[in-house]
């Protein structure tokens, strides 16, 4: 097992190299320039100045040379400095991580806590009124655009009822609060974002769970279990659920890169300084070092996520063994 993991980790390196070469080429060949964004339409900024800025950013060198420079620094874990404000890229990313991670973990927990029982219950009572209502309901939520739901919730909870703040993660005077004021303040600010970001995922997980449970319930071993007179609860939860949960484990693994992902729309609406907006703004302003760092981050996390899913699979399903041949 250990050598299997080791081989998989080694395999990440060429894969990552490929990802970076392709994405480096694409983002640099895409039309638009970092110096073209804020400054070009300002007559006070002369074209000579723009050329000079490009030189200072190192954009006048040939593309392969730029890539090799970037790679040489990457090996030393130096992602460079952002073009937009000259801060370290790593610092810019890491200051966004706590919030993004908090919201994503909270909503993931929320999704699984609600989605799994919902799916199981629907499967057991397949075709019942409960099943039909949940089906319609989760699909409605799934289909509703996040930004629209967010605005509706804001209208209701923040303006009509006045219970929650609209945007931001803390109140204005947060720094002067004592810790027992800080926690409820954070909770009040995070409630709507977590709720809204869970809603889309809820449909997915409960549907996966439902179909996977249905499949398990139609397996011969379930008939066997019933035939030998096991109590229904034991049939469903011990024999059915345990087998049905396997695909969900894969989903958990695949959610890992998503933990550090974010949605621009949703972060913008709630004015949250998350990763999604950072990436979006980096792309819009052609902030190459930042885009590349985020791609590397996403790539590494996706591959680790896959690996974790595979390992977890082997752990929960004794039939699966990875041989190190």
């Amino acid at each position, binding site marked *: 097992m250990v050598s299997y993991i080791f081989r998989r980790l080694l395999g990440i390196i060429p894969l990552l190299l490929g990802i970076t070469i392709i994405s480096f080429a694409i983002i640099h060949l895409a039309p638009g320039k970092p110096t073209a964004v804020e*400054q070009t339409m300002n007559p006070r900024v002369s074209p000579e100045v723009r050329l000079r800025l490009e030189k200072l950013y190192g954009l006048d060198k040939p593309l392969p040379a730029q890539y090799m420079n970037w790679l040489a620094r990457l090996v030393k874990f130096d992602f460079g400095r952002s073009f937009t404000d000259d801060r370290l890229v790593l610092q810019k990313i890491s200051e966004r991580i706590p919030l993004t991670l908090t919201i994503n973990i909270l909503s993931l927990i929320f999704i699984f806590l609600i989605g799994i029982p919902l799916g199981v219950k629907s499967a057991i009572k397949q075709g019942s009124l409960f099943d039909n209502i949940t089906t319609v309901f989760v699909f409605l939520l799934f289909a509703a655009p996040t930004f629209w739901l967010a605005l509706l919730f804001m209208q209701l909870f923040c303006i009509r009822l006045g219970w929650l703040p*609209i945007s931001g993660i803390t109140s204005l005077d947060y*720094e002067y609060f004592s810790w027992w004021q800080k926690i409820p303040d954070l909770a009040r600010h995070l409630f709507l974002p977590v709720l809204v970001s869970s809603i889309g995922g809820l449909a997915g997980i409960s549907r996966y769970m439902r179909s996977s449970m249905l499949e398990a319930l139609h397996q011969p071993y379930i008939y066997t279990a019933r035939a030998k007179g096991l109590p229904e609860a034991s049939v469903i939860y011990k024999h059915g659920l345990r087998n049905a949960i396997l695909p969900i484990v894969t989903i958990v693994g695949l959610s890992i890169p998503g933990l550090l992902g974010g949605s621009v729309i949703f972060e913008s609406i709630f004015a949250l*300084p998350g990763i999604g907006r950072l990436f979006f703004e980096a792309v819009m302003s052609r902030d190459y070092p930042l885009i590349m760092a985020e791609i590397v981050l996403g790539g590494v996390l996706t591959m680790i996520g896959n690996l974790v899913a595979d390992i977890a699979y082997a752990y929960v399903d004794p039939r699966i063994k990875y041989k190190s041949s």
Partner: protein
Amino acid sequence: MVAFLFLPAFVFSQDYGDAFIEASIADARTLVPILASDSASSSVTGLIFNGLVKYDKDINLVGDLAESWEIEEEGLVIVFHLRKNVLWQDGHRFSAEDVEFTYRKLIDPNVRTPYSGDFERVKSLEILDDFTVKVTYKEPFSPGLSSWGMPIIPKHIFKNEDLNKTQYARKPVGTGPYKFKVWKTQEKIELESYRDYFEKRPYIDRVVYRVIPDEATIFLELQTQGIDSSGLSPLQFSRQTETPFFKQYYRKFRLPGFNYTYMGYNLGNPKFRDKRVRQALNYAVDKDEIIKMVLLGYGQTATGSYVPQSWAFNQQVKPVAFDKEKAKSLLAEAGWVDTDNDGWLDKDGMLFEFTLLTNQGNEERAKVSQIIQRRLKEIGIRVKIKIVEWSVFLTEFIDKRNFEAILLGWSVPREPDNFDIWHSSKTKEGEFNFIGYKNEEVDRLLIEARRSFDQDFRKTCYQRIHQILYDEQPYMFLFVSESLSALHNRFRGIKPAAIGIGYNFIEWWVPKQEQKYRIAK
């Protein structure tokens, strides 16, 4: 009775305290003012720093860090007399050294400043004494005076710093009315009043810029009084804020804008080379309709490159009336008639059609282009609309002259010199006369005006340019939109003027009993 006795005190004394919370669509990038080119950074540094000169409420240049100045040697030399009572926010005395240092950094090729252009015209800058600076230009350059509105940065802070990477980009020290307190990236920037500010202590104790990237959210925040001020769209201004709530808590402002929107023609394109064609198009598009439909009436027809509140604006130039027949006859004169009766004009077998290009993310421009499309269809011209992402729009289409017509806007600086936009030498890739306009009289006037410090003379030059441009129609000047905003009504001391409302921010105050944010330690 008691209340009555106290009342005059409330009315006539101005209280200190409270905070002003403003929403900003984007976070600032850097608080080193000579590097900042985005509007979020500039509005924050505007409160922290001062230039040598500034514009007063009537858009005249007045002294800021400079008490006065003299123009000598027929405009070649400007001598600035600096204020002697100015302290940097860390207690250091402000002096001529700081001005010289700022200038050196502006022309240093290793500093990533976009503003070096105006300062490269300076031949030398000498310190005559601690509070007198002599600037000598290579040739007389009157717009140079307003370029000294560039914020002055402290030498004692930056002298051993690489300006591009300095830590002070995130904790600036200036001379201005507010000093930096906190910056939480993508959340907020907080400033507090600088009690020793050389003009006076500002009444409002705190200023907070909250980053809220979504316009719908900003509007919802207004509805919970989470922010004190915000710009409004025409729809929000005319309908959505006409509620009892808004009337109770907010004041709304309609102020003349410093901008204009235009349709620019690629004058290298044979279709647009004939002045009569461009004049015809101007007759065919109803600007009042655009202003009514797109701006809901909050704007006025533009007639040139200057805004009506500017001294360079020519009142004699009147917009032409919408007249389809006149348009058709001008086009016929130029040879464009519908010979094959297919509904579209043609000339020498060529159909009159063109692509109107504009940038993505601007709803207003998308609507305007549709109205133009329909109006031109009525006189037999086929317009295709193409909307492109901003950075691509600039690098692939504008810089490379790869367009037929574009719909864009300029924001109009307080200094009317627009040499870079209209002079025929400014047509190289990346320069701003991208439509390829060339008129010898305009070229000459632009140069004469920027070589003179005599405002009356400059005025005649710019007003003549205004007239020529409207006659020649290199752009179809569409409209100047008003700037619409809401401001919480607990703030007092606001005096709207030609330049806007923010110019006297340090005079704004909130009566003690209405103050909302009290803790500021």
